[in-house]
């Protein structure tokens, strides 16, 4: 390289400054979340909020963990999230394969256009008719209603992500396998999926986060506390007459932490997976 050492050093320094600034920006709300969660009530409501906790306590956590529906909400969210991810992945793999290989058929093209269109439909506007459909199908107040809704709204993006991934797989690979008498399903399982692992991981992470974060459908479709998911559950913590920020923040910490850990573990795949998807566009 021809650049001088000094300009390289400056560049490096700049990079660090930028990254540290970003990290603070990203982390600060968490830090504050954790600090609030560890404060006793009178310190939470102090008019001079400080970083130092005079009497750190786990009371908020214990309270949320044992005396509220948090654990139930968490389990429900986990179940719905995993199930919706699996289901949308299953469906998206099939449709993405079709989209990447058979775009020449008019029907396939139609499906791809409808998928783009469905992305433009605000879920708010479908709320009431969907509620009625769910009721007619007997899905109301069951996790199936959420499963179906989340799957539908994640299929398009999952499909597009996977489509671009699959398109980058040379068709010759398939032809060879086809020669061996593989069925299409067998071919997908044996040839396509194994080399698409990063794409699958990033797609499923995406689907999972979507389901994990969703608020509105969970809020309206589920009335039974034993079936309620995390996000509407958290909004319940805002309470009736006063807002108990200590509990809200400790519940937030506990709901975010597991996913953060999962992500940090799988983030390598996320970047790899998006690479193939993104670069092709």
């Amino acid at each position: 390289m021809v650049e001088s050492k000094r300009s390289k050093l400056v560049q490096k320094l700049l990079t660090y400054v930028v990254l540290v600034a970003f990290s603070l920006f990203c982390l600060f709300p968490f830090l504050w979340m954790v600090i609030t969660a560890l404060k006793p009530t009178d310190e939470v409501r102090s008019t001079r909020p400080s970083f130092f906790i005079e009497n750190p306590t786990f009371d908020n956590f214990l309270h949320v963990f044992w005396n509220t529906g948090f654990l139930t909400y968490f389990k429900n969210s986990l179940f719905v999230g995993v199930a919706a991810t699996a289901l949308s992945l299953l469906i998206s793999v099939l449709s993405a394969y079709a989209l990447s290989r058979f775009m020449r058929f008019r029907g396939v093209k139609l499906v791809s256009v409808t998928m783009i269109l469905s992305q433009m439909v605000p879920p708010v506007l479908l709320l009431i008719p969907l509620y009625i459909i769910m009721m007619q199908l007997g899905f109301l107040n069951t996790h199936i209603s959420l499963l179906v809704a989340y799957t539908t709204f994640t299929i398009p993006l999952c499909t597009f992500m996977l489509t671009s991934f699959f398109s980058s797989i040379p068709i010759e690979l398939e032809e060879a396998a086809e020669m061996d008498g593989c069925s299409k399903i067998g071919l997908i399982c044996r040839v396509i999926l194994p080399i698409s692992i990063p794409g699958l991981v990033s797609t499923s992470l995406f689907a999972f986060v979507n389901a994990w974060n969703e608020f509105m459908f969970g809020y309206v479709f589920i009335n039974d506390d034993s079936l309620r998911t995390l996000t509407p559950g958290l909004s319940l913590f805002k309470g009736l007459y006063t807002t108990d920020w200590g509990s809200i923040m400790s519940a937030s910490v506990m709901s975010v932490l597991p996913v953060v850990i999962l992500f940090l573990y799988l983030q390598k795949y996320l970047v790899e997976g998006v690479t193939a998807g993104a670069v092709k566009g």
Partner: protein
Amino acid sequence: MRVSVEKDAESLSRKRRPTREVKAKQIAYMFVLPAFLFFLVIVAYPLVSVIWDSFHDKNLLNTGDGRFVGLANYVEVIRSEYFVQAFVNTGIWTIVSVAGEYILGIVAALALAQRIRGRAIFRGIIIIPWIVPVVVAGLTWTWMLTPDYGVLNSWLVKLGLLDEPYYFLGEPDTALLSIIIVNIWRSFPFYTITLLAALQSIPRDIYEAAALDGIGPVGRFFKITLPQLKSVSIVLIMIHIIWTAINFDFIWVMTEGGPVHSSETLPIMIYRFAMQELNIGLASALASLMLAFMIIGFMMYYLYIQRKSGNRGGM
């Protein structure tokens, strides 16, 4: 031996081409069928009912009524007091959010693409906001922004930037802007990850060649990096324009569109019509209008792309 087999296969396939094609078609349709069914039941059918309702006088609580009223609902929506404001707000909310997200996203991606120590850790940290549920992000920032107990106000006052605590979410001038910042905070990591991935796939030798030609880092960014990121960026921005424009929960969790409708966007207005004023006809008309705006926008974009690239590129 091998040659003859290949020849056989070729002639075979040529002979069977029509049936092969039919079979492929069957398979293709079978594969897209599940996705299509989901779409039909969960999106298309409700959508049709929304469009149907938009032409009818339908109230959520007296379902017996429901006569055809033509375009009356549309007229009422457009004439309604806060429509123009909500429309403008939606524009501001979408454009400022997406622009901010893109700028932060690309800066973070460029920094992360450098070969430095601790890159993985920084990358991990920067992804975090994106995993936070909107409700949690909204609640946390609301908590940080409260005037009396909020840490941000307390700091700004201590630093002398504010004379007294300011209610960011409670003032018509700053409510929407505050939510936009929170939205940017939560959404920019997605850009970063995607752009980072794209950055890493740009061959290094292009840069080296440019450096040899004496082009500085800034020049390289504009001459090489940006053009290389163009297609990814367009897809990213397009997707996020849609997602942001139709986003409901962020604003709902933080201000419910207030104070005095100053942070109300079209989706919030739809919800207000439907769930608070219980007027499904109006809500549906507004929803249909919004859908129409978006489709028109994208059609125009699509046509523009088509014309620009001749007939070369599809989506």
